[in-house]
């Protein structure tokens, strides 16, 4: 695999992350509030929040690994791009990892204790951390464009589109709507990533490691990726089923 192929793989991994984890971020951001069909905001009851988390729960583990894998590709194949991006966007990157850890802790821990206060506090943490995660991701994409204004704009765009995306996935799992809105919001969350990849392409590809290492790692990627995709397909099948009695409500 050459640098261009690795850059395409990196983009695919990032798109996978925003589509899968974006649904979890969006559902997390809208955990406490729901908009009724007549346009009024309504606070969700504890059992309804549990249903929302059940709807996106199976996406968390198979979803966030896409960004971890993308970071692995950045470190291993494009080390210069990673170092440049994180040096320029230092505060944004620290916010991203902080809110990611907080969001994960919120999802994993909130349902582990029965107390009402325990869960309410974690739910607020989950809402704030989900919004911060989406926003800082968008802003980090903007840093790759090399402009503070783009960073701000993409941060806001990311917060808005992940909300829509999370709402669409939850509605689809409850079979209130079809799969079409999910497809539309998936394109919406993916487009900033694809746009940034195209804009940053020359700098990314020039900073790759040597051809021999890329070829050696390419063999690993080509052997493993089909297996990963099969398992991911099974995970998507779990999510594509209507939410029902055979689902596990772990989160």
């Amino acid at each position, binding site marked *: 695999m050459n640098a261009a192929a690795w850059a395409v793989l990196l983009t695919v991994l990032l798109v996978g992350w925003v589509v899968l984890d974006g649904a979890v971020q969006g559902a997390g951001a809208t955990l406490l509030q729901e908009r009724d069909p007549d346009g009024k905001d309504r606070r969700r009851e504890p059992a309804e929040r549990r249903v929302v988390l059940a709807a996106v729960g199976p996406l968390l583990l*198979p979803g966030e690994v896409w960004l971890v894998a993308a970071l692995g590709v950045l*470190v291993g194949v494009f080390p210069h791009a*990673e170092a440049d991006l994180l040096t320029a966007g230092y505060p944004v990157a620290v916010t991203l990892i902080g809110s990611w*850890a907080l969001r994960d*802790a919120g999802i994993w821990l909130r349902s582990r204790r029965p107390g009402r206060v325990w869960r309410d506090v974690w739910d607020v943490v989950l809402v704030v951390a989900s919004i911060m995660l989406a926003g800082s991701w968008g802003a980090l994409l903007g840093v790759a464009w090399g402009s503070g204004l783009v960073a701000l704009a993409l941060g806001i765009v990311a917060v808005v589109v992940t909300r829509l995306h999370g709402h669409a996935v939850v509605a689809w799992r409850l079979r209130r709507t079809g799969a079409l809105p999910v497809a539309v919001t998936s394109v919406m969350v993916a487009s900033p990533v694809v746009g940034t990849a195209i804009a940053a392409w020359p700098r990314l590809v020039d900073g790759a*490691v040597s051809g021999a290492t890329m070829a050696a790692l390419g063999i690993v*990627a080509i052997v493993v990726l089909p*297996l990963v995709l099969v398992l991911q397909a099974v995970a998507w099948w779990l999510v594509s089923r209507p*939410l029902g009695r055979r689902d*596990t409500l772990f989160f």
Partner: protein
Amino acid sequence: MEATELARLQFALLAAVHFVFVLLTLGLGPVVAIFNTRWVRAKDDRALVFENATRFWGQLYLVNYALGIAAGIVLELQFGLHFPGLLDVAGEVFGAPLVVETLAAFFLESTLLGLWVFGWHLFPRALHAGIFWAVVVTGYVSAFAVMVANGFLRNPMGYVLEGPPDAQVARITDAGALITNPAALLSGLHVVGACLAAGGFVLVGVSAWHLAQGGLPGTARAGWGGRRPADHDEDLWRRSLRTGVVTGSLGVLLAIGFGYSQYAYILQVDAGMFADDADGSVMETLSLTAMGFMEILAYLMFLGALPLLLLLIGNAVFRMPRRLRVLVYWLAVLAVPVPFGVAILGWLSRELARQPWVIQGVVRVDDVTSDQSGQVVLVSLVLLVGLMVTLAILDWWVLGRLARAGTNRLVLGAEASDVLRDDGAGPDVLVRFGGPGSGASGAPGAVDVQDDGPEPEAAR
């Protein structure tokens, strides 16, 4: 402190948090897989005991895993944030095993774990158990890939430096040497021992706590313990304790054995490395102190595990006079933190011995640190370390509460409607999940099923 020292301290503290969670993930994984397999194979009423064992230990595994991932992600970004020079010089050699770790091992591990949790009621039982075995295997592959990356830093092999003297880049020349590096292979097996020991001590400690309580019929009686467990719960804790004693002893033996086998290459690598540097000699003293404490505590662990192993004969540990039994149980509870402390000491001893080098004898830490000012690094240190330590303490508190609750209200593998009823769900929500009183359910073809009896779980 300067930016370099703060960056180094931040990495060390975050790595320590990550390491503690990884120990239990790798130590508890094989045990959960064994219980899951025995549940699948059980024909009689022992199936319920093994099902509960899978769900109870599996739940602890998951809550521990959650923070392990979060801490691992925070750690992965530290290289780019604070040590970009390391990637400039050795991105290729050091980065390659990390690509294998994330792209191959962790990607598979996490996806498989998601299937195990959320496919609980969907996959055939045998396939479900097989998925968890795959989680365990990929977890160990992932840990080994990290040991290859870390082993290269401790004992660089299979590479060559190319380019002008001021911008040298390391290239892989011999991938085999990189993988079979004793600093990866022997140290990896040493860490596997430490993981199994940690898993074993947790298994024994938690089971002993439950056996020491008066609530279990077979243990409440004064005098001698029963030959057979009085009920399913006591059976579960007895089996868990036995499993823990065996895996814990095996782990301590592996850790001590492969600990000594590392001396050959360590002495060779370190020959003449320390003396020329004041910072280095302080670090050497600290490293040797940590190693000394680690060895003393490891022998104490061995001395504690040996009598327990002997007491398994004829189930003596469960049948001794009550006062003696309870004393042994409480000692086992108090010993739970020991393997974690020992592992941290071992890790400190290894990493401190390398200072001031980031790649032993090749690149120094202060040559690769980013240009961030000391204040900026201090702010991120306080934020990230403060956050991770707070989350770690909360996670341990939750683990403690879950461990105390035992098999009462296990959420992992429970029926959806039972979980929602505990959350106060009304009939309008429960109808979707086939709860009692609803005529229909979400599953296709399940219309008109009358669900007013107990859930199938109890029937199994």
